[in-house]
């Protein structure tokens, strides 16, 4: 059942994050990233030894970049870490394990995890350095690579608006990985700008139906 209230505290919602947990964190860089929840992780003692599945690991000292600098991240799974030099430094110092996936494969593996699909084949990456160790299969005459689905213990996402059931709509390109991640974790926590009454969202427009969402934190900060 969704815990939706404009007053659900970040600390209460983040209690689901345990040491060693695998987190999915929405956002494309900082756009659509749940920045208040990420800040909450910095003061949550359970947030350590984390595996973070996210397209990037924030920017230097911002978003997930802060979590990295605070030594909370053991492993990062994503598609583009080079924009944050701190990630490169942590990796080269042996403080961070990195699993790199093409962005489309990352998104698809998250969607698969949420949709009960065990794994899938994509042409992307075949014949490249990222194909190493991956099973190949020819389908329709074209070589594909196998990828298993990704799943997380907790997903931290950001949306524009929730209704009181936990239905979510997003804002422009801040949508990105958030709806996919909302499907692929045992516990899904959404940070939103506003909470509206049930029935205020058009049923045709809801992107994330409430059955995916476990808790909603309203930051009340319109951007």
């Amino acid at each position: 059942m969704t815990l939706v209230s404009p007053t659900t505290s970040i600390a209460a919602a983040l209690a689901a994050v345990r040491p060693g947990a695998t987190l999915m964190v929405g956002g494309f860089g900082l756009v659509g990233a749940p920045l208040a929840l990420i800040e909450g992780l910095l003061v949550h003692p359970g947030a350590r030894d984390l595996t973070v599945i996210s397209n990037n690991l924030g920017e230097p000292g911002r978003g997930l970049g802060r979590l990295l600098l605070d030594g909370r991240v053991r492993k990062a799974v994503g598609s583009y870490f080079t924009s944050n030099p701190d990630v490169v430094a942590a990796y080269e110092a042996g403080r961070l394990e990195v699993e790199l996936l093409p962005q489309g494969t990352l998104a698809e593996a998250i969607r698969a995890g949420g949709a009960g699909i065990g794994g899938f084949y994509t042409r992307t990456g075949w014949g490249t350095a990222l194909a190493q160790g991956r099973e190949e299969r020819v389908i329709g005459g074209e070589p594909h690579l196998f990828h298993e689905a990704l799943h997380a213990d907790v997903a931290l996402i950001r949306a524009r608006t929730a209704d009181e059931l936990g239905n979510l709509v997003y804002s422009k390109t801040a949508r990105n990985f958030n709806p996919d991640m909302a499907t692929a974790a045992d516990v899904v926590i959404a940070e939103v700008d506003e909470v509206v009454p049930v029935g205020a969202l058009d049923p045709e427009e809801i992107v994330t139906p409430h059955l995916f969402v476990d808790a909603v934190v309203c930051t009340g900060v319109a951007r």
Partner: protein
Amino acid sequence: MTVQQMTVQQRIAARVAPHIPRGAVVNLGIGIPTLVADHLPAGTAHLQTENGLLGVGPTPGPGEIDPDLVHAGKLPVTARPGASYFASSASFGMIRGGHVEVAVLGALQIDARGRIANWALPGKPVLGVGGAMDLLVGARTVIVATTHTAKDGTPKIVADATFPLTAQRPVDLVVTEAATFAVTPGGLELVDIADDHDLAWIRTHTAAPFR
């Protein structure tokens, strides 16, 4: 602005623009490819960006920036009328599924078969790939927009790539400030020489065989 006053990057972008069919759905990579938008007659292409928008509009003015509205290079954009937003999985479904007609990508190297390397440097940790591999396998036509040589003057078009390839799929067209090559089953074919360059320069600065 005359051609002479344009930066080399803008000149390359201008040379790519005529290869974009009217009404096409186009994904522009980071760097020189992004500049192609400035050279397309307004509204003649539908720009898709893999972070979840079809219908990218012009760069906003300083007071019009929306932090929730960026392109894949994470810079602010606008959305045109008729635009739509979608999740990352849907966006890459479009790309891998062949629904993007043209991708314009940058390159570090192009080999004699038209395969490109544009995501990693040899001997460096491999920590970023983004959407390059998906675009390269998925877009129906791939155009490379690149300077003819690297910053140190060495050819980018080489017999064999020394940088890691982005895909086995060859691109369709390679456009530089000096030349345009079509990629054919037989290899690179020189189809155009820029007004301010000549065949001798191209021969000297191209390390792959071409016709």
